[in-house]
């Protein structure tokens, strides 16, 4: 979509084709028989052909796959038509997964840095050496700083992440930092503030859908991306608000290029109309909600005319949308969205969405937003020792640490007491906030963090203001990265441990909550191609070396140490992982066999579950136990309890553009761009500039431009288009890579994490992705 056209050159195509041909053609020698006489159309060599059900790991969706394996070689990954979550689809990334195990850029053996960091000099070492080295470094750091939390552990979701936490908990660090604050934490927080949970949208049955800033056609989420077009009920209306004309906007009945940062004003005006015209669901509000009067008083001033001045959507149309939304309720959806925070008031934006759904009774019924159900799994009840030397998280008291990244004027109107509260207050403690975590580490406040582990995450590419991340790395005495390819983060590591692909290993089962909950798992599809290991094996290997070092266990009870060895090592990690999986589904007879056959399991045939909370006695996970239109918890923390609109603290200056980020359907964050089958769809990113603005700046299609923000400047090719607001520019993320071992994409395009400033949403701890303003000049 972006820039693929202007970068195509024939000679490159040839070299890439031959390179890829060399890489992949030998995967299978094909036999072709297409002849009129025989009617034999087979294209595969005769031999053992299997169809193995498993689960995709090219993004977070975990779609069902059926892998076609011929003579032990993976030919094709097909969608699993039975899988109720992925609805029988498999996207470009999922298909391209078949190239992953065979990638020439894979890490094949543990690598120890020999030159300077980032210099790219590596020595191959054995796994034994690697495990010893990790254990020794952990022991040394613990001794030196007398604090186990001096080693930080970054990770992101994935089926093997729980074994990473076996390692974390065996060492006893409190400093873990996950992807959440670059992802959904603000969204979850906003919806949870009202309903106590983060719900799903029943797009399959909704009659009226409003999507704000969600590009469901490109940022693929199953089942939403399928449902919103494939199962769209006849006559369903889709209203899309987005500063860009996305593929989703192209599907919309009405698209509004909403002024960034003002989405909330639009939704507040909808609430205003619905309350003032008495269109809300009285019975529902009466039965289930708390704080309606306060809400009513708040929104009095938020008239459509007021909103028009903010968000540039005509007041008449706001009124019309409000009426239509209320008319179709409860089969109306204000789409919860699945994305990172854009603005510092992100939590309030989401709270406003949730309130709109609540007052119209669009909750937990067909065609509305519905709380996720889940399939209960049998947990391994393991007890990790309590280490005396585990200090609380480095960012536990983030107040004061994060002042630099929270503009006062942003914090002020929202936070009653004037300063953000503890950054972790609204996060799962395991998640941590990347923004405040990094500030705390950089300031050595309250204690130094000198070790860094990273599993599957790529903070160098994904955390805004990459200079700060690299400065943080400089503080580290030991960096260990567990990855499949040499990511940009791995490039700066001291030790890189190669992880097996999802096609070569068993993964424990995971429950995927949703309207139709499902349990997914993975099994090996092909034999491991290289000397790689899974996190399960790596955790076991490292912990075995750790128990050999007495100094690592001197701050726990000796009895606990013995119990640890027995429970964790002998009880879990030393056993085959299959036993772990079987234990997880112990409660469901036949489930394991079903998993082997289908790649997923549902106890009740995957029926949609509605109405579990539509019971006047149901206690919501809020302070009052009701659906809170007025949030008592926020009041307690000194935050605005209602979604009060506050003016943007920062606006683009003259000659500045608001910098937007987004995704395509053929890449996942920063992890898939190097896959040749995806790379050929898009070979670098470009900067979207509105046609009229480009003309003003003298920029034409494909020109190199300089993009400058407060924290960095880059050059990138221009994509001049009508598809974006004149006051915004846009990159798709995952380009401008620093690791030369990402051979196809090294230094192609420009990196979003480099240009983005780090601005925090103080309630959810999220990084705000649309708070960077840039200037553009033609080179």
């Amino acid at each position: 979509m972006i820039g693929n056209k202007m970068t195509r050159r024939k000679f490159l195509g040839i070299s890439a084709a031959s390179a890829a041909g060399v890489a992949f053609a030998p995967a299978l020698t094909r036999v072709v028989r297409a002849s009129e006489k025989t009617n034999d159309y087979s294209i595969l060599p005769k031999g053992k052909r299997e169809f193995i059900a498993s689960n995709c790991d090219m993004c977070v969706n975990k779609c069902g796959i059926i892998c076609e394996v011929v003579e032990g070689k993976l030919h094709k990954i097909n969608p699993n038509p039975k899988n109720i979550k992925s609805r029988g689809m498999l996207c470009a990334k999922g298909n391209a997964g078949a190239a992953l195990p065979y990638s020439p850029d894979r890490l094949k053996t543990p690598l120890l840095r020999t030159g300077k960091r980032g210099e790219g000099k590596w020595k191959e070492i054995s796994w034994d050496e690697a495990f010893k080295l990790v254990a020794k470094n952990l022991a040394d750091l613990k001794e030196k700083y007398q604090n186990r939390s001096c080693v930080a552990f970054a990770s992101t979701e994935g089926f093997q992440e729980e074994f990473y936490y076996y390692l974390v908990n065996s060492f006893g660090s409190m400093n873990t930092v996950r992807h959440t604050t670059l992802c959904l934490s603000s969204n979850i927080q906003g919806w949870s503030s009202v309903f106590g949970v983060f719900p799903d949208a029943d797009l399959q049955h909704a009659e009226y859908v409003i999507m704000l800033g969600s590009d469901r056609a490109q940022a693929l989420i199953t089942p939403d991306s399928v449902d919103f077009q494939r199962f769209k009920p006849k006559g369903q209306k889709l209203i899309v608000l987005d500063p860009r004309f996305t593929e989703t906007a192209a599907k919309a009945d009405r698209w509004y290029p909403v002024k960034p940062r003002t989405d909330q004003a639009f939704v507040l005006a909808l609430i205003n109309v619905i309350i003032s015209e008495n269109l809300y669901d009285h019975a529902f509000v009466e039965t289930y909600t708390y704080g309606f009067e306060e809400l009513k008083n708040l929104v009095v001033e938020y008239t459509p005319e007021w909103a028009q001045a903010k968000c540039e959507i005509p007041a008449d149309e706001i009124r019309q949308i409000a009426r239509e939304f209320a008319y179709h309720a409860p089969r109306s959806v204000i789409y919860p969205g699945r994305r990172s925070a854009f603005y510092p008031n992100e939590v309030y934006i989401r709270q406003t969405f949730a309130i709109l759904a609540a007052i119209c009774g669009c909750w937990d019924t067909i065609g509305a937003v519905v709380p996720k159900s889940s399939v209960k799994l049998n947990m391994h009840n393991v007890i990790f020792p309590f280490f005396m030397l585990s200090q609380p998280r480095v960012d536990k008291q983030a107040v004061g640490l994060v002042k630099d990244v929270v503009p006062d004027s942003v914090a002020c109107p929202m936070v009653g007491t004037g300063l953000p509260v503890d950054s972790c207050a609204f996060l799962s403690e395991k998640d941590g906030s990347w923004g405040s975590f990094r500030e705390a580490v950089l300031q050595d406040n309250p204690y130094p963090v000198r070790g860094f582990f990273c599993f599957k995450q790529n903070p160098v590419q994904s955390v805004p203001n990459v200079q700060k991340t690299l400065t943080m790395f400089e503080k580290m005495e030991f960096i260990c990265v567990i990855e499949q390819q040499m990511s940009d983060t791995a490039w700066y590591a001291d030790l890189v441990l190669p992880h097996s692909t999802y096609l070569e290993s068993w993964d424990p089962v995971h429950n995927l909550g949703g309207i139709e909950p499902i349990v997914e798992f993975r099994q090996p599809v092909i034999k491991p191609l290289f000397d790689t290991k899974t996190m399960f094996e790596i955790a076991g290997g490292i912990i075995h070396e750790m128990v050999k070092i007495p100094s690592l266990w001197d701050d726990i009870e000796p009895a606990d140490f013995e119990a640890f060895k027995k429970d964790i090592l002998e009880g879990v990690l030393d056993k085959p992982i299959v036993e772990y999986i079987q234990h997880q589904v112990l409660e469901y007879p036949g489930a394991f066999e079903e998993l082997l056959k289908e790649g997923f399991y549902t106890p009740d045939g995957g029926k949609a579950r509605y109405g579990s909370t539509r019971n006047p006695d149901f206690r919501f996970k809020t302070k009052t136990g009701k659906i809170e239109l007025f949030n008592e918890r926020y009041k307690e923390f000194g935050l605005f309890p209602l979604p009060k609109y506050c003016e943007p603290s920062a606006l683009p200056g003259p000659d500045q553009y608001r910098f937007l980020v987004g995704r395509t359907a053929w890449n996942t964050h920063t992890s898939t761009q190097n896959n040749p089958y995806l790379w050929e769809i898009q070979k670098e990113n470009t900067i979207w500039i509105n046609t009229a603005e480009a003309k003003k700046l003298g920029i034409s299609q494909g020109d190199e431009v300089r993009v400058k923000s407060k924290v960095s400047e880059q050059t990138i090719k221009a994509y001049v288009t009508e598809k974006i607001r004149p006051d915004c520019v846009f990159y798709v993320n995952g380009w401008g890579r620093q690791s030369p071992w990402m051979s196809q994409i090294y230094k192609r395009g420009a990196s979003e994490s480099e240009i983005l400033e780090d601005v925090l949403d103080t309630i959810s701890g999220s990084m705000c992705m649309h708070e960077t303003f840039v200037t553009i000049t033609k080179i």
Partner: protein
Amino acid sequence: MFQSLDKYRSMIRINKDVPSMPFIILGAILLFLGFIGVVRVFWQGHEAVYGVTRQVPWGLLIATYAYFVITSTGLAFIGGLGHAFGVTVFAKMSRRIVLLAFIILLAGFTQIGMELGHPFRLLYLFILSPNFSAPIVWMGLFYSIELVILAIELYVVFNPSGTNHKVAAVLGFFALLVGIVATSNLGFVFGSLTARPFYHGVYFPMYLVVSGIAGGAALLMLIYNIIYKFNVPDFYSDAMAGLGKLMGICLGVMIFLLSWKIVSSLYTQPQDSVEAVTTLLKGPLSSHFWIGEILLALCLPVALLLISRVKNLKALGMAGLAFMIGMFFTRYDFIVAGQLPPMRAGLEGAGVETIAGLVQYSPSVGEWMVFALGLGLFLFLYFMSERFLVLDEQTRQ
């Protein structure tokens, strides 16, 4: 056995009057370059060596193939006029005509042989599995027959016991006829492409035949001027004038056809045709078109013929030279122009890259090398013949 060879001895001599050595050396160098090209093709494969693409599947080699084989059939036409239709002025040139036609046809076959991905497969599949609705089958068939006829003709005209004129007349007639059929079928290889309106129809079958005859005449006028170092003896003046007139007529017809082709193509439908002609008139091929096709192949020869009133033999040679150079561009343009308008617009995601609405093509080094092979083969074989064979009827008598 040696005795039987003896009679051929009269056919062999070393002709030092003809400036053949430079051309033989040039031919050898080109052959060597061509050989490198061939090795590259076998080593790296067609796709890697050639500049043709998905959108422009036919490139320089089809152009050079057409350039060679159409000239060959033009020569066969002229030879046939002499033998079969009693146009006796050309009879004195018959050895060179037949030899040229044969060698240049061989040169043409090297081009198509290197262009085809599976030339050897073709040999048996044309017999086992021919598709009679495909013009290529007919083209291949008639050019193969043409090669056989020319080979026999070659035997007949070089028969030391004297040429059997009856046989020569029959052969000449068939060489003429099959040549026309073959070339018009080559035209129809393009004429059958409904996808590409620029080619579609009867224009190219006709234009290629006429321009081929002009090419045959031009090549003869040029060759005679070369071997006599631009001092062609009077003995040939009537033949040369005949060639000049023949070429003049053909040029006239060509101008007539081309003008109407261009004018009719410029009307709004079909769009691809408009676009193809625009590439010639003011697009990427315009310099080829105006300098090569119009100036060198048409205007200059016409001017030279008119000014010299077909009497100055040097001028005829110059006209031949200009035409042979210009004709190269004509062939190239005709192959490429029709393919530049894309079958699908170069929109994002289409997989088609266009500049100003057109796809791009420029020949690769590998393609030029294969052209060198054909040209080298022609120069080497022909001038070796000039050096070692008795080609003049006059000296023989």
